[in-house]
């Protein structure tokens, strides 16, 4: 929890990792990819405050003790959701598998939730692995990374028929939340791999699943926002928005937050630190302190108040995951800022969703 000016914030870190990207875990013959991947993440860290920067060696693999300290002792987080990304083409034991993450859950069951994953290209064997992991960890959510390499394949779309088969099974197994992360590659390579239209189809076809688009579809915020206004079950995961922009590009942070508040609305935005890229502490403290500047160029954007910050930092994700929030952290009554579907009102040429 975090307290500022007498206000108490219940914090759910809805997108974080416990990875092993150390050289010992690099697949022989694929070292350049394993190295390039973690160096890319490390470059993102440089967008945070200088005093939080780590050496690449430390960044590649943090200890359980360090993670516990940075998330909970110093980081104000109440519940952290561990996302699983396998990348077994590059990392021998996986980048961060459900089993690695599950170890933390077993040690600290009140602090962590683990999300599983599947890869639709793994066929029946992949389905059996997914089912077994769901049976073991009972997740409410999964994380899908569409640019994961798999043999000769450079990625998949959520709208692929085989992916639908997995999503249907996931729903039968009790999955409610699907976190999606787009990456730079897909088949075929001549298409824009970051395009989010496949999620649009899925969100329509699976109305009972929630789709949390991590990094708000960066670098395609515009496509994401257009989609999110039309799909009531699409959420904006703020990982990278806060970590990558709030400190390094405060001007664009104001603008991007303004757009998200306008198009998506504070009821459908969730905080994620993206740990181990960035620590939650400075992100949460800065976000609570942040206010839309009172200037003409921001006048069109909705304002974000204390209630909205409470929703984004924890209450929205708590609702998605059924996390019990103590009474003192809950909002007394429904209050907030409307999203685009309400602002645009009648006569909007776009289908409206939500209200």
């Amino acid at each position, binding site marked *: 929890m975090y307290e500022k000016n007498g206000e108490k914030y219940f914090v759910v870190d809805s997108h974080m990792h416990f990875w092993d990207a150390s050289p010992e875990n690099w697949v022989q013959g694929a070292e*350049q*990819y394993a190295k*390039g*991947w973690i*160096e*890319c993440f*490390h*470059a*993102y860290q*440089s*967008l945070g405050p200088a005093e939080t920067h780590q050496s690449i060696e430390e960044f590649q693999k943090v200890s359980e003790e360090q993670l516990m300290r940075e998330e909970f002792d110093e980081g104000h987080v109440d519940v952290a959701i561990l996302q699983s990304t396998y990348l077994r083409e590059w990392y021998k034991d996986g980048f961060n598998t459900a089993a690695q993450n599950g170890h933390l859950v077993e040690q600290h069951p009140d602090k962590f939730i683990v999300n599983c994953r599947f890869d639709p290209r793994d066929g029946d064997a992949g389905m059996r692995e997914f089912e077994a992991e769901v049976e073991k960890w009972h997740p409410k959510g999964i994380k899908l990374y569409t640019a994961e390499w798999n043999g*000769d394949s*450079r990625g998949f779309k959520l709208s692929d028929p085989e992916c639908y088969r997995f999503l249907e099974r996931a729903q039968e197994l009790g999955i409610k939340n699907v976190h999606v992360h787009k*990456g*730079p*590659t897909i*088949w*075929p*390579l*001549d*298409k*824009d*791999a*970051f395009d989010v239209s496949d999620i649009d189809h899925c969100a329509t076809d699976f109305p009972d699943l929630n789709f949390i688009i991590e990094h708000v579809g*960066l*670098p*395609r*915020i*515009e496509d994401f*926002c*257009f989609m999110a206004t039309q799909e009531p079950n699409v959420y904006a995961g703020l990982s990278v928005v806060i970590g*990558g*922009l709030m400190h*390094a*590009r*405060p*001007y*664009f942070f104001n*603008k*991007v937050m303004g*757009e998200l508040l*306008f*198009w998506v609305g504070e009821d459908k935005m969730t905080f994620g630190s993206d740990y181990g890229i960035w620590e939650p502490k400075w992100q949460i403290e800065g976000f609570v302190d942040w206010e839309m500047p009172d200037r*003409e*160029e921001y006048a069109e954007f909705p304002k974000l108040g204390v209630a909205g910050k409470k929703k984004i930092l924890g209450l929205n994700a708590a609702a998605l995951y059924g996390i019990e929030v103590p009474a003192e952290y809950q909002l007394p009554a429904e209050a907030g800022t409307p999203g685009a579907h309400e602002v*645009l009102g009648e*006569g*909007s*040429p*776009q289908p409206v969703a939500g209200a």
Partner: protein
Amino acid sequence: MTAPVTTRSARAEAALAALETVRDPELDEPITSLGFVVSCAVSAAGDAQVRLRLPTYFCAPNFAYLMVADAYDAVSALPGVRRAEVVLEDHFASDVINDGVAAQAGFVQTFDGEAVSELHGLRADFLRKAVMAGTDQVCRPLLAAGKDPAALLAMTLGELPPSRALDRLRGRRADLGLPAGDDAALVIDPVTGERVTADAMPLHLRKARLTRVSIEANSGICRGMLRHRYNNTLGEGETPPPDDSGEH
């Protein structure tokens, strides 16, 4: 502003000027000002050597290919150049892209089995985004000066005061084959080229604003990562963005 002392030859200057016409299709900025050009040299015999770099090892390979191929075309077309070599460094697909561009193989052949078409469609998609962002750039000052959005509907490009933003918007529209002359409508649908209707105008302007925010925010992130990756060493012709300090 004083120009830095440079030992660049006139030939290299010409090559660098040619590279200034090459843009990152996603960020809609020249690869020079973004800092993507590591070096650019042309020998007395006319052999050009260009080295490029990108913010990450995993930047999207289709955009990377376009920049390398466009750089090759721009430098090869110079009168004093008899042979050009463009090398992308430190990228997962460096070898494939460099070899493909050198052989002028096209994207499909370069990424054999991994692509089904050339990149014209991708390029057009991002030109349309650039048109949307450019629309916000030229309309925002008009709106800030008190013009009603409805008034923009009837305006033509020729009614706007000259500006770099306007030149840029005209250029992107022309690249797409859309009307770009003085009598062309100011606000058009970037797919059909038709003047936007009154009903669609409010949403269109909001989309234009959002598209610009998206591109500019991405540009900010890319620049930050490039700086970290290459230890703050500047590229040839690199310029900081006008609003890098945070405010316009």
